[in-house]
């Protein structure tokens, strides 16, 4: 389904990814695979308390242990200003960041770093941790977002002043945001049906299989090199520079291959510690988190507590929506309350919408981005209540969505007016898909839900170097998590008119390529792709100039076609076309190296929409849910490498299913995490899932030369509600809290039985 019929040679084909062979043979170097000679090993001492004043830390015994080369605590980090500083698209509070990487006045969550040691071996470093004595004064803690907002709740930051609202005295609310479109009072007056509900979601971890890892080496002259698994080498550089007071020019960060991130590797944990330890010890320092540390101290995304009110006419026109979305931020402000509010009902054309959100601190690790941050949470509420509305109105749930679908020209509740978008197409395809009409058996149910994500652009730089033999190297600056190098190479091959396997894409370190904002926001194939296309065009322009020089004609008289320079018309002259390889070989005598370059702050990301269909079977004896069939339909703009686009859709849906059914943090009464491992924090395994049918709709983004939209995030938005709606259809029981794990669902089923018996 494409409204653009241009034919491409490479774009849209399924080539083998450039980094593939290294990854199937074990050659690829991930975060913890890197080593340097003379390297020592760092470990972190973490707070066992959810909330405690750190009265003192005595490291003297640890320092005296043979083999220990350096010990650091918060005393080794300079204080940071409390103001928000611009960093990429977001704002960073470095006062919080320095406290998150190393607790200062208080430990704010179980697992919060309080000291770090570098020693000749991991064993010695671990022994040294046991010799550090920390004098804690344990304070009452709070884990739940609703509890944290109550009067009398333990306060994490006495000095915190919330933005966007007035409060008397200390609070855990860091921020209040609101979005208003039209007049909801009027909208509810027009409504013939009004429904109000509350929903809750648990915090969940990104669950990347590769734990955080870093090697840092600081030389005596202060020059630092950092190798780490990150979604943004330039962010690591900026954060380490700020936290350690070093100039950016003295830090070179090389991203390793990255074993998953999903947003969770957009921040720093170990990097500043390893760099400081290396500086103190005068040796390279390697640090790797254990899985337990990953769970206790990194990520997750917010948990949320929401109320929704929706009104509609009997004919199914939604007239008003009001929602309140409270998100837990972890120990420091920064829950994605804004995006959660903005995405809540973005797939719909609703004239009257009022949504507000709270960013609330609690004694948990500080949240990090996770695939479409905020949107899956608010969508769970919105897409559940829309399903209830459809039932109430007796309208098919997809029909109801179609009746209210946002289209080109619709003003979104969060402000902008949509350009070309493909939401309605996803609903149309869902309605016609044979999945939607397939028969269901006993205890089985089908659910649907939609989702929205903005996608972003941002700063990207790319270089296309034409090699002397007619091949090309594409240098960009975004770690490749799921095949983006292949997409960049495909677009470069298309532009240059040479074969895909003649283009070698590599990812530069922070000293080898201009600034790139991180891999996130589904931006790489879109924004960095645009920079690569422009850099390739720049190289082509130079190639045409060289041909003009050889032919002794004006450069305007030369065009580029199928990898050859040709005279634009017979008026220019009668010349044999010159191939890229030919021009590359002649480069030394026509003006020297041919290097295309582009750097820009890319605008015009096209939003992504998706509609998912999910079939479940519920075991009434155990409350366990099996996913029988799953179809995910998504507007992808244009799939540059269709296999990896499908992969994003399938992977996002699978993560959403895990979020829906099993994933949650279990804290004990002391506020300690009781399930910091993959055995008890259960992410979906192969036998939990069916095939996930990814259906790509291509409504090209008119702001990108190939029509690219970001694709990585929106697939995690619909699944939670799709599963909940399916469970409701299977059992008649509406689950309004995640996860819908067997004990919780069983309890709800029993409750419903009791109710039914009583009636």
């Amino acid at each position, binding site marked *: 389904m494409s409204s653009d019929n241009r034919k491409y040679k490479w774009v849209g084909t399924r080539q083998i990814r450039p980094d593939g062979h290294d990854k199937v043979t074990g050659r690829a170097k991930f975060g913890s*695979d890197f080593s340097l000679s003379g390297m020592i090993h760092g470990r972190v001492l973490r707070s066992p308390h959810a909330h405690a004043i750190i009265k003192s830390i005595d490291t003297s015994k640890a320092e005296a242990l043979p083999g220990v080369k350096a010990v650091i605590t918060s005393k080794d980090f300079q204080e940071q200003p409390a103001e928000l500083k611009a960093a990429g698209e977001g704002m960073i509070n470095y006062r919080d960041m320095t406290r998150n990487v190393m607790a200062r006045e208080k430990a704010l969550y179980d697992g919060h770093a309080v000291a770090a040691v570098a020693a000749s071996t991991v064993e010695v470093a671990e022994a040294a941790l046991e010799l550090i004595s920390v004098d804690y004064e344990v304070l009452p803690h709070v884990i739940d977002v609703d509890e944290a907002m109550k009067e009398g709740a333990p306060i994490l930051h006495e000095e915190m002043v919330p933005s966007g609202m007035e409060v008397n005295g200390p609070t855990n609310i860091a921020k209040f945001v609101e979005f208003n479109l039209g007049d909801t009072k009027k909208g509810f007056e027009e409504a013939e049906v009004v429904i109000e509900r509350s929903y809750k979601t648990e915090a969940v971890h990104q669950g990347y299989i*590769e*734990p955080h890892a870093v090697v840092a080496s600081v030389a005596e002259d202060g020059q630092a090199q950092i190798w780490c698994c990150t979604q943004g080498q330039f962010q690591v550089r900026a954060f380490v520079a700020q936290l350690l007071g070093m100039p950016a020019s003295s830090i070179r960060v090389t991203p390793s291959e990255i*074993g998953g991130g999903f947003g969770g590797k957009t921040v720093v944990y170990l990097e500043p510690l390893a760099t400081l330890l290396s500086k103190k010890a005068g040796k390279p320092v390697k640090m*790797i988190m254990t899985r337990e540390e990953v769970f206790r101290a990194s990520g997750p995304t917010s948990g949320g507590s929401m109320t929704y009110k929706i009104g509609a006419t009997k004919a199914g026109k939604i007239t008003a929506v009001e929602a309140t979305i409270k998100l837990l931020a972890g120990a420091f402000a920064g829950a994605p309350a804004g995006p959660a509010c903005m995405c809540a009902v973005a797939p719909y054309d609703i004239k009257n919408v009022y949504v507000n959100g709270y960013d609330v601190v609690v004694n948990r690790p500080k949240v990090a981005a996770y695939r479409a941050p905020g949107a899956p949470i608010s969508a769970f509420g919105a897409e559940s209540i829309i399903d209830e509305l459809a039932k109430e109105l007796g309208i098919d749930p997809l029909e109801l969505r179609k009746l209210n679908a946002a289209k080109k020209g619709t003003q979104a509740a969060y402000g902008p007016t949509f350009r070309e978008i493909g939401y309605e197409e996803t609903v149309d395809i869902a309605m016609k898909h044979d999945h939607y009409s397939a028969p269901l058996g006993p205890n089985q149910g089908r659910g649907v839900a939609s989702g929205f994500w903005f996608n972003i652009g941002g700063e990207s730089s790319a270089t296309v170097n034409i090699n002397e033999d007619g091949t090309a190297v594409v240098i960009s600056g975004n770690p490749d998590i799921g095949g983006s190098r292949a997409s960049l190479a495909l677009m470069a091959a298309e532009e240059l008119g040479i074969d895909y396997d003649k283009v070698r894409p590599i990812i530069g370190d922070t000293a080898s390529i201009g600034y790139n904002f991180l891999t996130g926001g589904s931006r790489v194939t879109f924004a960095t792709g645009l920079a690569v296309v422009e850099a390739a065009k720049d190289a082509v322009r130079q190639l045409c100039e060289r041909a003009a020089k050889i032919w002794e004609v004006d450069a305007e008289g030369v065009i580029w076609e199928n990898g050859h320079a040709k005279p634009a018309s017979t008026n220019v002259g009668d010349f044999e076309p010159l191939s890229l390889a030919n021009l590359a070989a002649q480069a030394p005598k026509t003006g020297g190296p041919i290097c295309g370059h582009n750097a820009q702050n890319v605008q015009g990301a096209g939003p992504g929409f998706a509609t998912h269909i999910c079939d479940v079977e519920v075991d009434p004896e155990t409350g366990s849910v099996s996913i029988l069939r799953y179809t995910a339909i998504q507007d992808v703009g244009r799939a540059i490498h269709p296999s990896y686009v*499908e*992969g994003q859709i*399938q992977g996002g849906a699978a993560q959403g299913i895990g979020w829906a059914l099993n994933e949650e943090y279990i804290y004990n009464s002391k506020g300690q995490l009781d399930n910091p491992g993959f055995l008890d924090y259960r*992410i979906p395994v192969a036998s939990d*899932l069916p095939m996930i049918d990814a259906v790509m709709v291509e409504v090209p983004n008119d702001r990108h030369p190939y029509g690219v939209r970001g694709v990585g995030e929106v697939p995690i938005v619909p699944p939670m509600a799709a599963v909940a709606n399916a469970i409701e259809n299977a059992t008649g029981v509406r689950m309004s809290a995640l996860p819908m794990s067997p004990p919780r669902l069983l309890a709800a089923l029993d409750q419903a039985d009791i109710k039914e018996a009583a009636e």
Partner: protein
Amino acid sequence: MAKHHISMTLNGEPTEFLCSTRQTLLDVLRDELNLTGSKEGCASGDCGACSVMVDDRLVCACLVLGAECDGKTVESIEGMADGENLHPLQQKFLEEAALQCGICTPGVLVAAKALLERNNNPTETEVRYWLAGNLCRCTGYDKIVRAVMSTAADMRENAK
């Protein structure tokens, strides 16, 4: 403490190493023998990223001690390709994009190879249960399961 002197056959080569009692086979492969293809995702037997074969049994290298491997035959991802030729599973994983970040891939490949050596015609359910110990957070398993099944089909075809 004295180290153990261990001899084993690794990817077909006689291999000797010294290890401490607490070092796992995974530690030995990665830290002593510099074979970093086997990955550590959990160190507790829950993720399968460290899957290797020991005497023809599929195991988590993080749950086996290096010192237990004396006289054993160990195969890791580094031994899967035959010189320049990828194993059919490796090739199929590339062609069918059965990896995204690739951190789970070595373990998944070792486990899938073990399956196909036992059962050259597995059902989808059999593949899913066999690979249930290999976590992948990126792919949703769809393309992995398909790649394993289509490799099995190719191998059956080639064996005819």
